[in-house]
Protein backbone atom coordinates (compact mmCIF):
# COMPACT_ATOMS: atom_id res chain seq x y z
CA UNK A 1 0.00 0.00 0.00
CA UNK A 2 1.48 3.30 -1.11
CA UNK A 3 1.86 5.91 1.57
CA UNK A 4 3.02 8.58 -0.85
CA UNK A 5 2.99 8.98 -4.62
CA UNK A 6 4.71 11.62 -6.68
CA UNK A 7 2.88 11.83 -10.01
CA UNK A 8 4.51 13.63 -12.92
CA UNK A 9 6.29 15.97 -10.54
CA UNK A 10 8.15 18.77 -12.22
CA UNK A 11 10.00 21.80 -10.88
CA UNK A 12 11.49 24.45 -13.08
CA UNK A 13 13.46 27.44 -11.96
CA UNK A 14 13.19 29.57 -15.08
CA UNK A 15 15.14 27.64 -17.70
CA UNK A 16 16.62 25.16 -15.23
CA UNK A 17 14.64 21.94 -14.79
CA UNK A 18 15.47 20.69 -11.32
CA UNK A 19 12.91 17.90 -11.23
CA UNK A 20 11.84 16.48 -14.59
CA UNK A 21 8.47 14.68 -14.54
CA UNK A 22 9.26 12.23 -11.76
CA UNK A 23 6.94 9.40 -10.75
CA UNK A 24 7.85 7.90 -7.43
CA UNK A 25 5.88 5.74 -5.02
CA UNK A 26 6.84 4.60 -1.58
CA UNK A 27 5.06 1.84 0.28
CA UNK A 28 4.09 2.08 3.89
CA UNK A 29 6.84 0.71 6.10
CA UNK A 30 9.60 0.95 3.46
CA UNK A 31 13.11 2.16 4.07
CA UNK A 32 13.78 3.68 0.63
CA UNK A 33 17.11 5.04 -0.47
CA UNK A 34 17.36 8.05 -2.78
CA UNK A 35 20.74 8.54 -4.38
CA UNK A 36 22.18 10.60 -7.18
CA UNK A 37 25.09 12.89 -7.92
CA UNK A 38 25.18 16.39 -6.49
CA UNK A 39 22.69 18.60 -8.28
CA UNK A 40 20.51 15.69 -9.36
CA UNK A 41 17.42 17.08 -7.67
CA UNK A 42 17.28 15.16 -4.38
CA UNK A 43 17.11 18.25 -2.16
CA UNK A 44 14.54 19.81 -4.49
CA UNK A 45 12.43 16.70 -4.13
CA UNK A 46 12.58 16.98 -0.35
CA UNK A 47 11.60 20.63 -0.54
CA UNK A 48 8.70 19.81 -2.87
CA UNK A 49 7.35 17.01 -0.73
CA UNK A 50 7.51 19.08 2.46
CA UNK A 51 5.94 22.15 0.93
CA UNK A 52 8.93 24.48 1.11
CA UNK A 53 8.65 25.00 -2.67
CA UNK A 54 5.76 24.50 -5.06
CA UNK A 55 5.99 22.24 -8.10
CA UNK A 56 5.61 23.65 -11.57
CA UNK A 57 3.45 20.65 -12.46
CA UNK A 58 2.39 17.35 -10.99
CA UNK A 59 0.76 15.90 -7.91
CA UNK A 60 1.91 14.64 -4.56
CA UNK A 61 -0.61 12.15 -3.29
CA UNK A 62 -0.47 11.59 0.45
CA UNK A 63 -2.94 9.02 1.73
CA UNK A 64 -5.19 9.71 -1.21
CA UNK A 65 -5.04 13.50 -1.04
CA UNK A 66 -3.07 15.88 -3.24
CA UNK A 67 -0.97 17.94 -0.84
CA UNK A 68 0.53 20.31 -3.44
CA UNK A 69 0.15 23.91 -2.28
CA UNK A 70 0.01 23.18 1.42
CA UNK A 71 2.41 25.17 3.58
CA UNK A 72 5.26 23.35 5.36
CA UNK A 73 3.67 23.42 8.79
CA UNK A 74 0.46 21.88 7.47
CA UNK A 75 2.36 19.09 5.76
CA UNK A 76 4.26 18.44 8.97
CA UNK A 77 0.93 18.17 10.76
CA UNK A 78 -0.11 15.53 8.24
CA UNK A 79 2.81 13.37 9.31
CA UNK A 80 5.56 14.12 6.80
CA UNK A 81 8.65 15.27 8.67
CA UNK A 82 12.09 16.07 7.30
CA UNK A 83 15.51 16.58 8.75
CA UNK A 84 17.84 19.29 7.57
CA UNK A 85 21.49 19.72 6.90
CA UNK A 86 23.66 20.07 9.97
CA UNK A 87 23.37 23.77 10.79
CA UNK A 88 19.62 23.78 11.25
CA UNK A 89 19.30 23.43 15.00
CA UNK A 90 18.36 25.93 17.69
CA UNK A 91 21.98 26.44 18.59
CA UNK A 92 21.46 28.83 21.49
CA UNK A 93 19.05 26.46 23.22
CA UNK A 94 19.76 23.25 25.02
CA UNK A 95 19.36 19.83 23.45
CA UNK A 96 16.31 19.23 25.59
CA UNK A 97 14.72 22.57 24.66
CA UNK A 98 15.19 21.77 20.97
CA UNK A 99 13.16 18.59 21.30
CA UNK A 100 10.57 20.15 23.62
CA UNK A 101 9.74 22.79 21.03
CA UNK A 102 9.27 20.08 18.42
CA UNK A 103 6.91 18.24 20.77
CA UNK A 104 4.61 21.25 20.52
CA UNK A 105 2.79 19.65 17.64
CA UNK A 106 1.50 16.74 19.61
CA UNK A 107 0.94 18.36 22.94
CA UNK A 108 -2.66 19.10 23.69
CA UNK A 109 -1.76 22.54 24.83
CA UNK A 110 -4.41 24.97 23.83
CA UNK A 111 -3.35 28.32 22.50
CA UNK A 112 -4.16 30.20 25.66
CA UNK A 113 -2.75 27.60 27.97
CA UNK A 114 0.66 28.65 26.74
CA UNK A 115 0.10 32.04 28.34
CA UNK A 116 -0.76 30.84 31.78
CA UNK A 117 1.08 28.68 34.21
CA UNK A 118 -1.79 26.79 35.77
CA UNK A 119 -1.23 23.55 37.58
CA UNK A 120 -2.59 21.70 34.57
CA UNK A 121 -0.18 23.45 32.24
CA UNK A 122 2.73 22.67 34.54
CA UNK A 123 1.82 19.00 34.55
CA UNK A 124 1.64 18.99 30.75
CA UNK A 125 5.01 20.71 30.53
CA UNK A 126 6.50 18.00 32.76
CA UNK A 127 4.97 15.29 30.58
CA UNK A 128 6.40 16.92 27.46
CA UNK A 129 9.84 17.01 29.09
CA UNK A 130 9.63 13.33 29.96
CA UNK A 131 8.66 12.52 26.39
CA UNK A 132 11.50 14.64 25.04
CA UNK A 133 13.98 12.83 27.29
CA UNK A 134 12.80 9.43 26.12
CA UNK A 135 13.27 10.56 22.51
CA UNK A 136 16.80 11.67 23.34
CA UNK A 137 17.40 8.27 24.94
CA UNK A 138 16.18 6.54 21.78
CA UNK A 139 18.81 8.47 19.82
CA UNK A 140 21.47 7.88 22.46
CA UNK A 141 22.02 11.53 23.43
CA UNK A 142 20.05 11.83 26.66
CA UNK A 143 23.25 12.37 28.63
CA UNK A 144 23.91 15.71 26.90
CA UNK A 145 20.38 17.03 27.26
CA UNK A 146 21.43 20.22 29.07
CA UNK A 147 24.23 21.16 26.70
CA UNK A 148 23.78 23.88 24.13
CA UNK A 149 22.90 22.38 20.77
CA UNK A 150 25.50 24.53 19.04
CA UNK A 151 28.31 23.07 21.14
CA UNK A 152 27.65 19.40 20.42
CA UNK A 153 29.99 17.30 18.31
CA UNK A 154 28.86 16.60 14.76
CA UNK A 155 27.45 13.14 15.35
CA UNK A 156 25.35 14.28 18.29
CA UNK A 157 23.96 17.19 16.31
CA UNK A 158 22.80 14.79 13.61
CA UNK A 159 21.19 12.57 16.22
CA UNK A 160 19.48 15.63 17.69
CA UNK A 161 18.11 16.54 14.27
CA UNK A 162 16.48 13.13 14.07
CA UNK A 163 15.20 13.32 17.65
CA UNK A 164 13.54 16.62 16.75
CA UNK A 165 11.90 14.97 13.74
CA UNK A 166 10.75 12.01 15.83
CA UNK A 167 9.08 14.36 18.31
CA UNK A 168 6.53 15.12 15.59
CA UNK A 169 5.45 11.46 15.38
CA UNK A 170 6.15 11.17 11.66
CA UNK A 171 4.50 8.63 9.43
CA UNK A 172 6.95 9.46 6.68
CA UNK A 173 10.43 10.57 7.68
CA UNK A 174 12.65 12.26 5.12
CA UNK A 175 16.27 11.94 6.22
CA UNK A 176 18.69 14.34 4.60
CA UNK A 177 22.21 12.83 4.66
CA UNK A 178 22.07 11.48 8.22
CA UNK A 179 25.55 9.94 8.25
CA UNK A 180 27.55 12.35 6.11
CA UNK A 181 30.82 13.18 7.80
CA UNK A 182 30.64 10.32 10.30
CA UNK A 183 33.29 7.67 10.85
CA UNK A 184 32.38 4.01 10.11
CA UNK A 185 31.48 3.21 13.72
CA UNK A 186 29.20 6.23 14.12
CA UNK A 187 27.71 5.44 10.73
CA UNK A 188 26.89 1.89 11.69
CA UNK A 189 25.23 3.00 14.93
CA UNK A 190 23.15 5.59 13.14
CA UNK A 191 22.07 3.24 10.39
CA UNK A 192 21.10 0.63 12.99
CA UNK A 193 18.97 3.25 14.72
CA UNK A 194 17.36 4.16 11.43
CA UNK A 195 16.54 0.52 10.79
CA UNK A 196 14.99 0.39 14.24
CA UNK A 197 12.77 3.35 13.39
CA UNK A 198 11.60 1.52 10.29
CA UNK A 199 10.92 -1.57 12.37
CA UNK A 200 8.75 0.59 14.62
CA UNK A 201 6.53 1.46 11.69
CA UNK A 202 7.92 4.72 10.34
CA UNK A 203 8.27 4.89 6.56
CA UNK A 204 11.62 6.39 5.67
CA UNK A 205 13.06 8.08 2.59
CA UNK A 206 16.79 8.32 2.97
CA UNK A 207 19.09 10.58 0.97
CA UNK A 208 22.75 9.72 1.41
CA UNK A 209 26.06 9.91 -0.38
CA UNK A 210 27.59 7.10 1.64
CA UNK A 211 27.03 4.24 -0.81
CA UNK A 212 27.87 1.45 1.61
CA UNK A 213 25.36 2.77 4.15
CA UNK A 214 22.56 3.03 1.62
CA UNK A 215 23.23 -0.27 -0.11
CA UNK A 216 23.42 -2.26 3.11
CA UNK A 217 20.38 -0.68 4.73
CA UNK A 218 17.78 -0.11 2.05
CA UNK A 219 15.94 -2.89 0.29
CA UNK A 220 14.87 -0.60 -2.52
CA UNK A 221 16.76 2.34 -4.00
CA UNK A 222 15.73 5.10 -6.39
CA UNK A 223 18.45 6.78 -8.44
CA UNK A 224 18.07 10.25 -9.91
CA UNK A 225 20.26 12.29 -12.20
CA UNK A 226 19.59 15.67 -13.75
CA UNK A 227 16.14 15.68 -12.18
CA UNK A 228 15.11 12.39 -13.78
CA UNK A 229 14.62 8.95 -12.30
CA UNK A 230 17.20 6.76 -14.03
CA UNK A 231 16.82 3.55 -12.06
CA UNK A 232 14.87 1.93 -9.26
CA UNK A 233 15.25 -1.42 -7.61
CA UNK A 234 17.22 -3.51 -5.17
CA UNK A 235 20.80 -2.55 -4.32
CA UNK A 236 21.98 -5.37 -6.58
CA UNK A 237 19.84 -4.26 -9.52
CA UNK A 238 20.76 -0.61 -9.11
CA UNK A 239 24.49 -1.20 -8.81
CA UNK A 240 24.41 -3.30 -11.98
CA UNK A 241 22.28 -0.83 -13.94
CA UNK A 242 24.26 0.62 -16.84
CA UNK A 243 22.78 4.10 -16.52
CA UNK A 244 23.56 4.27 -12.86
CA UNK A 245 27.10 3.08 -13.31
CA UNK A 246 27.65 5.61 -16.01
CA UNK A 247 26.19 8.48 -14.03
CA UNK A 248 27.44 7.79 -10.61
CA UNK A 249 29.03 4.71 -9.27
CA UNK A 250 32.04 4.29 -11.46
CA UNK A 251 32.85 1.22 -13.52
CA UNK A 252 33.16 -2.31 -12.24
CA UNK A 253 32.13 -1.86 -8.63
CA UNK A 254 29.21 -3.66 -7.07
CA UNK A 255 27.71 -3.35 -3.62
CA UNK A 256 25.77 -6.55 -3.20
Amino acid at each position, binding site marked *: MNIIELVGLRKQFGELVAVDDIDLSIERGELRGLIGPNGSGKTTLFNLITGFIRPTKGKIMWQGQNIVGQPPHAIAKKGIIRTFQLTTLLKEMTVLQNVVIACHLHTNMGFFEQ*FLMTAGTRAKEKAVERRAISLLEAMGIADVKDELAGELPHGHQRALGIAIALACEPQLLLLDEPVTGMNPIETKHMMDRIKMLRDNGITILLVEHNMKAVMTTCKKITVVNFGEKIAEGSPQEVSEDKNVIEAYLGRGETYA
Partner: protein
Amino acid sequence: MPKSNLKPIGLGVLTVILLVLPFILTAYYVDIMIMLLINILVVVSFRFIALTGDFSVAHIPLMGAGAYASALMGLRLGLPFWLTLPLAGLTAALVGLVMCYPLLRMKAFAFFLGSYAAGEAMRLSWIRFRNPFGGHTGITNVPPPESIPLPGLGTIDFAEVIPYYFLTLGVTALCLVIMYRLEKFRIGDTLKAIHSEDNLVKSVGINVTTYRALAFLIGSFFAGISGVLLVHRLGAVDPYQFSLAATLYLLVWVVVGGLGTFAGPIIGVVTLTVISELIRGFVEWVPLVYGFILIAILLFLPEGLEGLPKKMQLMAKRVMKHAGQ
Protein backbone atom coordinates in the same frame (compact mmCIF):
# COMPACT_ATOMS: atom_id res chain seq x y z
CA MET B 1 26.05 36.46 49.37
CA PRO B 2 24.61 33.68 47.20
CA LYS B 3 23.57 34.78 43.74
CA SER B 4 20.01 33.58 44.06
CA ASN B 5 19.40 36.04 46.88
CA LEU B 6 20.67 39.04 44.94
CA LYS B 7 17.82 39.28 42.47
CA PRO B 8 14.83 39.51 44.85
CA ILE B 9 16.80 41.78 47.18
CA GLY B 10 17.75 44.00 44.28
CA LEU B 11 14.15 44.14 43.10
CA GLY B 12 13.00 44.88 46.63
CA VAL B 13 15.40 47.79 46.94
CA LEU B 14 14.36 49.07 43.53
CA THR B 15 10.69 48.89 44.49
CA VAL B 16 11.29 50.87 47.68
CA ILE B 17 13.25 53.49 45.76
CA LEU B 18 10.52 53.83 43.14
CA LEU B 19 7.86 54.21 45.82
CA VAL B 20 9.77 56.80 47.80
CA LEU B 21 11.33 58.87 45.02
CA PRO B 22 8.29 61.03 44.10
CA PHE B 23 8.22 62.40 47.62
CA ILE B 24 11.89 63.34 47.51
CA LEU B 25 12.22 64.74 44.03
CA THR B 26 10.87 67.98 42.66
CA ALA B 27 7.81 67.89 40.47
CA TYR B 28 9.99 68.40 37.40
CA TYR B 29 11.92 65.21 38.07
CA VAL B 30 8.81 63.23 38.94
CA ASP B 31 7.55 64.19 35.50
CA ILE B 32 10.81 62.89 34.03
CA MET B 33 10.23 59.65 35.91
CA ILE B 34 6.73 59.38 34.42
CA MET B 35 8.13 59.80 30.91
CA LEU B 36 10.89 57.33 31.68
CA LEU B 37 8.38 54.71 32.82
CA ILE B 38 6.35 55.23 29.67
CA ASN B 39 9.47 54.87 27.54
CA ILE B 40 10.43 51.72 29.41
CA LEU B 41 7.09 50.23 28.44
CA VAL B 42 7.74 51.24 24.84
CA VAL B 43 11.18 49.60 24.62
CA VAL B 44 10.18 46.40 26.38
CA SER B 45 7.15 45.95 24.14
CA PHE B 46 9.36 46.67 21.12
CA ARG B 47 11.70 43.93 22.23
CA PHE B 48 8.80 41.51 22.63
CA ILE B 49 8.05 41.80 18.93
CA ALA B 50 11.79 41.59 18.18
CA LEU B 51 11.96 38.16 19.87
CA THR B 52 10.90 36.72 16.52
CA GLY B 53 13.44 38.84 14.70
CA ASP B 54 10.87 41.37 13.47
CA PHE B 55 11.89 44.98 14.13
CA SER B 56 8.61 46.91 14.10
CA VAL B 57 9.30 50.45 13.02
CA ALA B 58 5.57 50.98 13.28
CA HIS B 59 5.91 50.73 17.05
CA ILE B 60 5.99 54.44 17.84
CA PRO B 61 3.11 55.23 15.46
CA LEU B 62 1.13 52.45 17.15
CA MET B 63 1.86 54.13 20.46
CA GLY B 64 0.26 57.14 18.82
CA ALA B 65 -2.71 55.04 17.77
CA GLY B 66 -3.30 54.23 21.42
CA ALA B 67 -2.96 57.89 22.36
CA TYR B 68 -5.39 59.10 19.71
CA ALA B 69 -7.83 56.28 20.46
CA SER B 70 -7.98 57.08 24.15
CA ALA B 71 -8.28 60.80 23.52
CA LEU B 72 -11.12 60.32 21.04
CA MET B 73 -12.96 57.76 23.12
CA GLY B 74 -12.73 60.06 26.11
CA LEU B 75 -13.71 63.29 24.38
CA ARG B 76 -16.18 62.04 21.75
CA LEU B 77 -17.70 59.02 23.44
CA GLY B 78 -17.36 60.22 27.01
CA LEU B 79 -15.80 56.97 28.15
CA PRO B 80 -13.88 56.99 31.41
CA PHE B 81 -10.09 56.51 31.46
CA TRP B 82 -10.38 53.10 33.09
CA LEU B 83 -12.22 51.92 30.01
CA THR B 84 -10.30 53.81 27.37
CA LEU B 85 -6.97 52.50 28.68
CA PRO B 86 -7.58 48.85 27.72
CA LEU B 87 -9.77 49.74 24.74
CA ALA B 88 -7.12 52.00 23.25
CA GLY B 89 -4.57 49.24 23.75
CA LEU B 90 -6.87 46.90 21.87
CA THR B 91 -7.28 49.51 19.16
CA ALA B 92 -3.53 49.66 18.69
CA ALA B 93 -3.45 45.86 18.55
CA LEU B 94 -6.23 45.84 15.96
CA VAL B 95 -4.45 48.37 13.79
CA GLY B 96 -1.39 46.14 14.14
CA LEU B 97 -3.48 43.18 13.01
CA VAL B 98 -4.47 45.02 9.86
CA MET B 99 -0.83 45.89 9.23
CA CYS B 100 0.08 42.22 9.66
CA TYR B 101 -1.58 41.19 6.43
CA PRO B 102 0.98 42.85 4.19
CA LEU B 103 3.81 42.96 6.71
CA LEU B 104 4.04 39.28 7.56
CA ARG B 105 4.81 38.45 3.97
CA MET B 106 8.08 40.26 4.56
CA LYS B 107 11.12 39.34 6.55
CA ALA B 108 14.11 41.17 7.99
CA PHE B 109 14.95 44.36 6.14
CA ALA B 110 11.81 44.31 4.01
CA PHE B 111 9.75 44.03 7.17
CA PHE B 112 11.72 46.90 8.68
CA LEU B 113 10.92 49.15 5.72
CA GLY B 114 7.36 47.92 5.37
CA SER B 115 6.59 48.56 9.01
CA TYR B 116 8.00 52.06 8.66
CA ALA B 117 5.73 52.65 5.67
CA ALA B 118 2.68 51.30 7.46
CA GLY B 119 3.28 53.42 10.54
CA GLU B 120 4.00 56.49 8.52
CA ALA B 121 0.85 55.98 6.44
CA MET B 122 -1.20 55.92 9.61
CA ARG B 123 0.55 58.98 10.99
CA LEU B 124 -0.03 60.90 7.77
CA SER B 125 -3.72 60.06 7.98
CA TRP B 126 -3.81 61.84 11.34
CA ILE B 127 -2.43 64.92 9.61
CA ARG B 128 -4.69 64.56 6.58
CA PHE B 129 -8.00 64.05 8.36
CA ARG B 130 -8.71 67.03 10.58
CA ASN B 131 -11.89 65.27 11.54
CA PRO B 132 -11.48 63.36 13.77
CA PHE B 133 -7.72 63.48 14.29
CA GLY B 134 -7.25 67.21 14.35
CA GLY B 135 -4.65 67.46 11.58
CA HIS B 136 -1.39 69.25 12.34
CA THR B 137 -2.49 70.50 15.71
CA GLY B 138 -3.88 67.20 16.86
CA ILE B 139 -6.24 66.93 19.78
CA THR B 140 -6.11 69.09 22.88
CA ASN B 141 -8.00 69.31 26.16
CA VAL B 142 -7.63 65.63 26.82
CA PRO B 143 -8.77 65.17 30.39
CA PRO B 144 -6.71 63.37 33.01
CA PRO B 145 -8.10 60.15 34.48
CA GLU B 146 -11.12 60.63 36.72
CA SER B 147 -10.33 61.44 40.30
CA ILE B 148 -10.83 58.77 42.90
CA PRO B 149 -12.55 59.93 46.06
CA LEU B 150 -11.21 58.44 49.27
CA PRO B 151 -13.96 58.79 51.92
CA GLY B 152 -12.61 60.81 54.80
CA LEU B 153 -9.17 61.33 53.25
CA GLY B 154 -9.87 63.52 50.24
CA THR B 155 -9.53 62.68 46.56
CA ILE B 156 -6.74 61.34 44.37
CA ASP B 157 -6.44 63.92 41.63
CA PHE B 158 -4.65 62.57 38.58
CA ALA B 159 -4.05 66.02 37.22
CA GLU B 160 -1.34 66.20 39.85
CA VAL B 161 2.05 64.74 39.22
CA ILE B 162 2.50 62.36 42.16
CA PRO B 163 -0.79 60.48 41.71
CA TYR B 164 -0.14 60.23 38.00
CA TYR B 165 3.32 58.88 38.74
CA PHE B 166 1.88 56.05 40.80
CA LEU B 167 -0.73 55.36 38.14
CA THR B 168 1.99 55.10 35.52
CA LEU B 169 4.17 53.01 37.82
CA GLY B 170 1.35 50.56 38.50
CA VAL B 171 0.29 50.16 34.88
CA THR B 172 3.86 49.88 33.60
CA ALA B 173 4.82 47.36 36.28
CA LEU B 174 1.80 45.21 35.46
CA CYS B 175 2.55 45.29 31.73
CA LEU B 176 6.20 44.40 32.31
CA VAL B 177 5.27 41.47 34.53
CA ILE B 178 2.91 40.16 31.85
CA MET B 179 5.54 40.41 29.12
CA TYR B 180 8.19 38.89 31.37
CA ARG B 181 6.04 35.87 32.11
CA LEU B 182 5.00 35.43 28.50
CA GLU B 183 8.65 35.30 27.50
CA LYS B 184 9.41 32.75 30.19
CA PHE B 185 6.66 30.40 29.05
CA ARG B 186 6.49 28.17 26.03
CA ILE B 187 5.44 30.99 23.75
CA GLY B 188 8.69 32.81 24.45
CA ASP B 189 10.74 29.81 23.38
CA THR B 190 8.71 29.44 20.21
CA LEU B 191 9.21 33.10 19.30
CA LYS B 192 12.96 32.86 19.86
CA ALA B 193 13.09 29.64 17.84
CA ILE B 194 11.44 31.46 14.96
CA HIS B 195 14.17 34.09 15.14
CA SER B 196 16.85 31.41 15.23
CA GLU B 197 15.71 28.91 12.57
CA ASP B 198 12.29 29.55 11.12
CA ASN B 199 12.54 26.69 8.59
CA LEU B 200 13.11 24.22 11.40
CA VAL B 201 10.12 25.60 13.27
CA LYS B 202 7.93 25.26 10.17
CA SER B 203 9.08 21.69 9.65
CA VAL B 204 7.86 20.65 13.09
CA GLY B 205 4.35 21.82 12.34
CA ILE B 206 4.32 25.29 13.90
CA ASN B 207 2.65 28.07 11.91
CA VAL B 208 5.35 30.71 12.01
CA THR B 209 3.11 33.43 10.59
CA THR B 210 0.59 32.98 13.39
CA TYR B 211 3.27 33.41 16.04
CA ARG B 212 4.83 36.42 14.37
CA ALA B 213 1.37 37.98 14.27
CA LEU B 214 0.80 37.14 17.90
CA ALA B 215 4.06 38.79 18.97
CA PHE B 216 3.20 41.81 16.85
CA LEU B 217 -0.26 42.12 18.37
CA ILE B 218 0.94 41.77 21.93
CA GLY B 219 3.77 44.26 21.44
CA SER B 220 1.49 46.71 19.69
CA PHE B 221 -1.11 46.42 22.45
CA PHE B 222 1.46 47.53 25.01
CA ALA B 223 2.67 50.28 22.70
CA GLY B 224 -0.91 51.52 22.65
CA ILE B 225 -1.06 51.43 26.45
CA SER B 226 2.07 53.56 26.66
CA GLY B 227 0.45 56.03 24.28
CA VAL B 228 -2.59 56.28 26.56
CA LEU B 229 -0.37 57.01 29.56
CA LEU B 230 1.37 59.69 27.52
CA VAL B 231 -1.68 61.53 26.23
CA HIS B 232 -3.44 61.73 29.57
CA ARG B 233 -0.36 63.20 31.19
CA LEU B 234 0.29 65.78 28.48
CA GLY B 235 -3.39 66.52 27.93
CA ALA B 236 -2.79 66.67 24.19
CA VAL B 237 -1.66 64.57 21.26
CA ASP B 238 -0.25 65.57 17.90
CA PRO B 239 1.21 63.62 14.98
CA TYR B 240 4.71 65.05 15.43
CA GLN B 241 5.18 63.28 18.74
CA PHE B 242 5.31 60.00 16.82
CA SER B 243 7.51 60.89 13.91
CA LEU B 244 10.65 59.18 12.70
CA ALA B 245 12.75 61.17 15.20
CA ALA B 246 10.98 59.46 18.08
CA THR B 247 11.54 56.08 16.42
CA LEU B 248 15.24 56.85 16.09
CA TYR B 249 15.46 57.50 19.81
CA LEU B 250 13.78 54.14 20.39
CA LEU B 251 16.31 52.42 18.17
CA VAL B 252 19.24 54.08 19.94
CA TRP B 253 17.85 53.00 23.32
CA VAL B 254 17.64 49.36 22.24
CA VAL B 255 21.05 49.32 20.60
CA VAL B 256 22.73 50.91 23.61
CA GLY B 257 20.94 48.66 26.06
CA GLY B 258 20.86 45.47 24.03
CA LEU B 259 17.98 43.22 23.04
CA GLY B 260 19.24 39.92 24.35
CA THR B 261 17.81 40.15 27.84
CA PHE B 262 14.62 41.51 29.33
CA ALA B 263 16.56 44.16 31.24
CA GLY B 264 18.69 45.22 28.29
CA PRO B 265 16.40 47.80 26.67
CA ILE B 266 15.48 49.13 30.12
CA ILE B 267 19.14 49.73 30.88
CA GLY B 268 19.47 51.52 27.56
CA VAL B 269 16.58 53.91 28.01
CA VAL B 270 17.42 54.65 31.65
CA THR B 271 21.08 55.34 30.87
CA LEU B 272 20.33 57.64 27.97
CA THR B 273 17.57 59.45 29.86
CA VAL B 274 19.91 60.09 32.79
CA ILE B 275 22.64 61.32 30.47
CA SER B 276 20.33 63.63 28.56
CA GLU B 277 19.12 65.08 31.86
CA LEU B 278 22.71 65.68 32.93
CA ILE B 279 23.44 67.66 29.78
CA ARG B 280 20.12 69.44 29.83
CA GLY B 281 21.90 72.74 29.96
CA PHE B 282 23.36 72.11 26.54
CA VAL B 283 20.21 70.98 24.78
CA GLU B 284 21.74 71.26 21.29
CA TRP B 285 24.34 68.71 22.32
CA VAL B 286 21.84 65.95 23.06
CA PRO B 287 21.70 64.44 19.55
CA LEU B 288 25.48 64.70 19.30
CA VAL B 289 25.99 62.90 22.58
CA TYR B 290 23.44 60.26 21.59
CA GLY B 291 25.30 59.67 18.35
CA PHE B 292 28.62 59.49 20.14
CA ILE B 293 27.33 56.95 22.64
CA LEU B 294 25.72 54.92 19.86
CA ILE B 295 28.99 54.69 17.93
CA ALA B 296 30.96 53.88 21.08
CA ILE B 297 28.59 51.05 21.93
CA LEU B 298 28.66 49.65 18.42
CA LEU B 299 32.46 49.68 18.45
CA PHE B 300 33.26 48.47 21.93
CA LEU B 301 30.17 46.77 23.28
CA PRO B 302 27.99 45.70 20.35
CA GLU B 303 25.75 43.49 22.46
CA GLY B 304 24.77 46.59 24.38
CA LEU B 305 25.16 47.60 27.99
CA GLU B 306 23.42 44.40 29.06
CA GLY B 307 26.58 42.58 28.01
CA LEU B 308 28.72 44.67 30.34
CA PRO B 309 28.76 42.35 33.40
CA LYS B 310 29.87 39.44 31.24
CA LYS B 311 32.52 41.52 29.50
CA MET B 312 33.87 42.78 32.79
CA GLN B 313 34.05 39.20 34.06
CA LEU B 314 36.05 38.22 30.99
CA MET B 315 38.36 41.21 31.39
CA ALA B 316 38.83 40.46 35.08
CA LYS B 317 39.77 36.89 34.21
CA ARG B 318 42.28 38.11 31.67
CA VAL B 319 43.80 40.51 34.18
CA MET B 320 44.07 37.73 36.76
CA LYS B 321 45.75 35.51 34.20
CA HIS B 322 48.38 38.13 33.37
CA ALA B 323 48.92 38.95 37.03
CA GLY B 324 49.52 35.30 37.76
CA GLN B 325 52.23 34.98 35.14
